[in-house]
């Protein structure tokens, strides 16, 4: 086969441009946020079971506060929330069914960081103080690196992040010395008890639920309890329409 110089140059230019632009274009076309993590930790919160034993909600919150030195700040504008209670109708705004049981509408639901697959807080963080862990999908925080710009608080659609407007130690009655407190000017949130998971323990809120009110597990393991529960019962998530892929599931 013979080829003149002009044709040869054209072909070379085409190959080069494909080489440069090919991968990004492929990424745009094939962007369905593939879950390529080794593990994908998630929680299933059974609202029905929780309502049967309403004291369990406070028990979970208390366990978390104790494990992570979370201060009790009475001022609502400055409070620190990792896991907290909210009425169903406020927690699930997108559930527009008007005629659901009235009791459910007003009943409290436990809310926490959703450890999204596609976390908006991570994309906006200028210092990578928050990031999604490659090994298990937990949205982690590095309080050493947080500069307190609060972009993540603006980005999070679930209100899962709190800013320390004051020294949290002033509002702590007792301190768990195995876990640090935070300092003024830092944002904090639930880390799905990464420090407990590393020791092979369950998250603090899950541990106090003896009756499977909250189930913790790996979604990438088809034989895990969490997958079995999710495949048996219909579950809902908070604001799934935003595309953040929240990983806290609620069974109503």
């Amino acid at each position, binding site marked *: 086969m013979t080829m003149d110089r002009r044709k040869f140059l054209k072909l070379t230019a085409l190959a080069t441009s494909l080489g440069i632009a090919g991968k990004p274009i492929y990424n745009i076309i094939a962007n369905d946020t593939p879950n390529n993590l080794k593990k994908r930790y998630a929680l299933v919160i059974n609202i029905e079971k929780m309502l049967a034993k309403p004291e369990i909600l406070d028990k979970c919150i208390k366990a978390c506060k104790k494990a992570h030195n979370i201060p009790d700040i009475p001022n609502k504008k400055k409070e620190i929330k990792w896991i907290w209670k909210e009425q169903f109708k406020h927690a699930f705004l997108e559930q527009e069914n008007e005629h659901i049981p009235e009791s459910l509408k007003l009943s409290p639901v436990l809310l926490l960081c959703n450890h999204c697959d596609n976390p908006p807080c991570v994309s906006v963080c200028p210092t990578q103080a928050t990031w999604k862990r490659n090994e298990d999908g937990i949205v*982690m925080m*590095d309080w*050493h690196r947080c500069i307190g710009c609060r972009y993540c608080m603006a980005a999070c659609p679930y209100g899962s992040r709190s800013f320390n407007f004051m*020294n949290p*130690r002033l509002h702590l009655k007792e301190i768990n*010395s195995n876990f640090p*407190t*935070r*300092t003024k000017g830092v944002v904090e949130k639930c880390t799905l008890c990464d420090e407990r998971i590393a020791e092979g323990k369950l998250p603090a809120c899950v541990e106090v639920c003896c009756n499977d009110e909250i189930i913790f597990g790996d979604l990438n393991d088809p034989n895990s309890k969490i997958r079995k529960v999710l495949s048996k019962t219909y579950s809902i998530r908070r604001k799934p329409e935003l595309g953040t892929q929240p990983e806290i599931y609620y069974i109503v």
Partner: protein
Amino acid sequence: MYNGGKITIAIIIFIIIFTSPIWTNWLNPQKAHKPEIVLPKDYKECIAETDYMKAYHMDLLNEWRDLVVRKNIRYLQKDGKPFLINGKKAEMSLTKTCLNCHNDKQNFCDQCHNYLDVSPYCWDCHVDKFNPLDVEQCPKRIKLEVNVEQNQEAKQ
């Protein structure tokens, strides 16, 4: 030189005042407070050599911080094996490992830090578990010193 005598006297007075800190110290020697470190009695072995720890403990702690928080590697390894202290795997943790042996922060950490006038912000968040008074108060250095005084008063 006009007014030579007066100028000379003034210069001498100036030099005397200017150098007064030096010669008052010669006349009345007071030794600067040297750090007095209390080493743990029950433990003999540290995770690294003393000279290395003296010079580089802050770098080591930074390294640990990144390994634990960002890479989720929690236990200290040496030569590919977990490092043991008293038969237990040593965690890369300021409170759980360092403070376990060096349980007297005021007579260990603070001694040199105060002498060199450095205020590491580790303790803004990490808890000195053996000194609850520090914990209740703001962790700023000035407040810590107030605490030390309160402690001493309480002991007396």
